[in-house]
């Protein structure tokens, strides 16, 4: 036979189902959120690392003048090299819509499936591509605008156009891994073709490589070691007569979006803690009410000889059951939702998602927290309830609550000018200060996070705006080969709608480390010294100005990768095979740490160093009108393209300014979208808290509602009374949420910014979040009060006064 006291726990649980449900819901929401967060955190960290490593990514990439398989085979023998593969990469354009050309980066793969490094995963269609066929990487497949089986037109740098048949879609983990530009999010469409197709496209027999992928033996994550091997390979390659253009290295687990995920993880953990906290408050509140309702029973138990510890154990047992039920409910629910959410996120950050799986530590975490957190949260109410004397318990009067009047109560008592029913609502609001405090905290924190999400979103938008300050031109034109600046300027300026043209120099260079070894790639951009098309955001130092000689400004990536490099130091770069010293005059902020090493200098300096006549490949064009729409920019791009074609000038690429900044923004949209999901979760916790508190308030005041009925209160008055109280709490919580939103926005924004860009954010605020939450919280509090209010209106006085 089950002991009567155990039976009492179970009977209480079942006997008051609504109340049990409320507690279980409070615990479940918290556990659910923790489960989702822990699962996502775990799965994403794991899959990003392992998914990348599973593709067998190259540790070293060497771009070189054309070489053949013989050299590759020779280089395989270099110490430290595990695998070496030659491949051929080239840029082209593809027609995404009639007249609309976007960049595409091709890699040629061997026909047979001997490719071992940088393996792709087939998503759809077939792999590898056959003759005159192309396989597209999934991330930007939408830009291609073609289905499997359809033909696309590509245009080679030579101006030749060729049709290719799309036969497959793959996922390539190495996208953005070696781009020295802004990384994964700005990478162009990736296409894969076979050697025969390359030969057909480019007609340069025999087939040669221009890129070498190498994986290393042993520790493939130690960058120093990777550079040692890379330099040995370079020496060997140059010794064999090859020309190395540049070298890049990357660890085997170092997914290009690792930093992005780190930012996400920080947000996840931060919100996870908050939600546990909030759900704890919720439990405290509900348990307090439960104990309050059971005070008489506690009195009876004590009369029957129950000692305090027995009562404490009794209620801890009850909570244990609540926690267990909540954990059992939350775990499968969290599992489902987490693995549902992970799919779109996986696509956004190019993660090789390995499918749903059983995560024992997540379950353990949920069960552990489900058993522990409610006990902690309920400890205070239980200790308090078990302390009450039998006489107080039986009479239902807490002497400790009588006769005490703090300054706040006196203030509330002095309120004048309201009708008595309104006064009742106002004073009732502040009656249970402990409960009000917890309810307000929960609701306000949920609201503050909700509001903060919107602020973070605009901050991200502002960041995108900031990125676009480096892409101020409406159209960026890249020619197939350098052309005389004067001539191109003339051609473009004649075009209707063009207001202004700038010729920009670009160069790819490599850092020369202090010990003389070659370091990473640095992308060099060289606008005219008086450029109107860059409006930099400086972190330190200044921008390049006229009169500077070999001055250079570096992006924030240098700060995190080379913390010893300061303003005023000299940076040695190898450019066109020649080593030059540059003076660092400043650091600017661009696309964050996940982008590559990027440096700006003046075109004048660059021309001097590479000793080139006044020719340029890159031109930035500003239209006459201001703030052109995406469509207008595209139209201008087409006009420019047509003019160039008419003049017989070969164009490599035409990109609109808005395309660049929107690509950069894509990653953040996913991040803030996810943030909003979590914010809604905290808001949900908050509103469950409010509903609970309101029903507890009404439940406890059933007797008073009966009195009001007895002295003439109609349904409408009762409804108004309770609604006013709920809305008042809602409104108060909004005010607190508004205040709390400022530090929380800062915290969230800084954490993300620190992870993404390596420096605190420039935080922006928007009224959207504030207003949206005001609306949401008022609706929520109205809903939270209507149900208890309706129940109260339904009670008859006899029932109510029999409540004693």
């Amino acid at each position, binding site marked *: *036979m089950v*002991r*009567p*006291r155990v*039976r*009492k726990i179970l*009977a*209480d649980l*079942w*006997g008051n189902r609504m109340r049990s449900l409320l507690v279980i819901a409070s615990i479940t929401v918290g556990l659910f959120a923790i489960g989702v967060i822990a699962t996502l955190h775990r799965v994403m960290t794991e899959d990003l690392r392992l998914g990348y490593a599973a593709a067998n990514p190259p540790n070293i990439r060497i771009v070189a003048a054309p070489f053949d398989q013989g050299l590759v085979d020779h280089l395989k023998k270099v110490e430290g090299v595990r695998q070496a593969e030659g491949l051929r990469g080239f840029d082209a354009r593809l027609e995404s819509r009639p007249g609309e050309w976007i960049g595409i980066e091709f890699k040629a793969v061997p026909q047979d499936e001997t490719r071992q490094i940088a393996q792709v995963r087939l998503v759809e269609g077939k792999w590898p591509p056959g003759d005159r066929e192309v396989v597209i990487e999934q991330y930007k497949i939408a830009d291609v605008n073609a289905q499997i089986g359809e033909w696309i037109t590509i245009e080679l740098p030579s101006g030749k156009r060729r049709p290719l048949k799309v036969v497959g879609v793959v996922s390539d983990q190495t996208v953005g891994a070696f781009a020295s530009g802004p990384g994964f999010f700005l990478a162009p469409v990736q296409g894969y073709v076979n050697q025969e197709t390359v030969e057909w496209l480019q007609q340069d027999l025999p087939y040669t490589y221009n890129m070498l992928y190498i994986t290393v033996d042993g520790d493939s994550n130690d960058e120093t070691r990777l550079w040692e091997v890379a330099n040995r390979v370079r020496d060997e390659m140059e010794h064999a007569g090859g020309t190395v253009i540049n070298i890049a290295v990357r660890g085997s687990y170092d997914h290009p979006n690792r930093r992005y995920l780190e930012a996400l993880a920080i947000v996840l953990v931060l919100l996870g803690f908050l939600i546990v906290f909030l759900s704890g408050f919720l439990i405290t509140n509900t348990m307090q009410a439960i104990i309050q309702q059971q005070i*008489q*029973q506690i*009195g*009876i*138990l*004590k*009369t*029957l*000889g*129950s*000692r*305090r*510890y*027995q009562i404490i154990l009794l209620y801890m047992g009850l909570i244990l059951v609540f926690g267990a039920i909540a954990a059992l409910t939350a775990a499968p629910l969290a599992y489902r939702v987490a693995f549902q959410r992970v799919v779109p996120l996986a696509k956004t950050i190019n993660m090789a998602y390995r499918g749903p799986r059983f995560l024992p530590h997540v379950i353990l975490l949920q069960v552990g927290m489900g058993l522990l957190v409610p006990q902690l949260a309920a400890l205070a109410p239980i200790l308090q309830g078990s302390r009450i*004397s*039998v*006489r107080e318990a*039986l009479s239902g009067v807490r*002497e400790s609550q*009588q*006769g005490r009047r703090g300054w706040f109560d006196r203030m509330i008592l002095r309120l004048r000018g309201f009708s008595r029913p309104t006064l009742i609502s106002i004073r009732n609001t502040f009656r249970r200060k402990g409960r009000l405090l917890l309810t307000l905290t929960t609701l306000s924190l949920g609201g503050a996070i909700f509001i903060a999400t919107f602020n973070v979103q605009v901050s991200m938008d502002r960041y995108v705006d900031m990125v676009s300050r480096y892409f101020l031109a409406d159209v960026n034109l890249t020619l197939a080969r350098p052309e005389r600046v004067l001539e191109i300027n003339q051609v473009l300026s004649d075009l209707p709608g063009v207001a202004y043209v700038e010729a920009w120099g670009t160069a790819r260079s490599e850092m020369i480390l202090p010990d003389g070894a070659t370091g990473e790639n640095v992308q060099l951009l060289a606008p005219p010294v008086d450029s109107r098309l860059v409006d930099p955001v400086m972190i330190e130092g200044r921008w390049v100005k006229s009169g500077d000689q070999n001055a250079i400004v570096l992006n924030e990536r240098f700060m995190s990768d080379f913390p010893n490099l300061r303003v005023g130091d000299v940076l040695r770069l190898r450019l066109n095979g020649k080593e030059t010293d540059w003076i660092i005059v400043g650091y600017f902020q661009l696309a964050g740490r996940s982008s590559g090493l990027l440096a700006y200098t003046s075109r004048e300096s660059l021309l001097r160093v590479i000793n080139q006549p006044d020719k340029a490949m890159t031109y930035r064009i500003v239209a006459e009108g201001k703030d052109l729409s995406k469509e207008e920019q595209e139209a201008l791009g087409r006009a420019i393209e047509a003019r160039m074609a008419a003049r017989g000038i070969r164009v490599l690429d035409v990109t609109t300014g808005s395309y660049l900044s929107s690509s950069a923004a894509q990653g953040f949209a996913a991040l803030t979208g996810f943030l909003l999901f979590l914010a809604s979760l905290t808001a949900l916790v908050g509103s469950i808290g409010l509903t609970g508190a309101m029903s507890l308030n009404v439940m406890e005041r059933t007797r008073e509602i009966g009195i009001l009925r007895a002295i003439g209160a109609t349904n409408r008055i009762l409804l108004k009374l309770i609604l006013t109280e709920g809305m008042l709490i809602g409104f108060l919580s909004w005010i607190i949420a508004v205040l709390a939103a400022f530090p929380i926005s800062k915290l969230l924004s800084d954490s993300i910014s620190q992870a993404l860009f390596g420096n605190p954010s420039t935080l922006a605020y928007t009224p959207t979040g504030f207003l949206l939450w005001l609306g949401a919280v008022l609706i929520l509090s109205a809903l939270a009060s209507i149900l208890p209010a309706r129940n109260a209106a339904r009670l008859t006085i006899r029932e109510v006064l029999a409540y004693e």
Partner: protein
Amino acid sequence: MDSPALPDRQPIIRARQVVKVYPAGGRPVQALKGVNLDVYAGEFVAIQGKSGAGKTTLVQILTGVDRLTGGEVWVDGAALHRFDENQLAFWRGRNVGVIFQSFYLMPTLSILDNVVLPIDLCGDYHPRRSRELALELLRQVGLEEHAYKLPSQISGGQQQRVAIARALANDPPLIIADEPTGRLDSVNAENIFQIFQSLVNGGKTVLMVTHDEGLASRASRRLILADGEIVADDFVPISVSEATNKTDD
């Protein structure tokens, strides 16, 4: 079974100068103003008085449900004024059966579980034996067929009989009841009274607060309280057997 108690023996209840003060709305109220009382084993004491006279307070002090402000109380040799809350609870659970006007059964437990509960809390709990004992007690109050019902499924008079069975669960020598018939009609009230009488005959000591004149007159001894003091006490040193005979007349 106790041997018939004699008045010259040590009293089962001894209260000396008991004072109880409540803080009511800031102004303390003296509910008991120095009460002295001796009750001997085997007595059936009725306590009377108007509302606010201090009856309930006296009962709460004697059961250890409330602490006294001043004075001393010994019950069955235990110095209640020196006990803390936990000691009082444990002592009470084993030594006093308490019965209330409002029955105070645990609403979510079956009748049987309600009776077993005190044994579980501070008696010698044994899954099978305790249950059998509880069933036996329910048989004594005529409710064994209701053992598996909830309190809300039986009438008020029946609930009070369950409360009596519960009070007897740990076989305490003393039963204290606060207006046990206050919520019952006359038939049920009579029924409860007769159970008390048989308990006294069985050797228990019973203290009962009541404002039913008819019932009070049938107890072996009557106390009347007014404004926190005992104003009348018809205590006559008689043996239990005599007391029993008297009430049977």
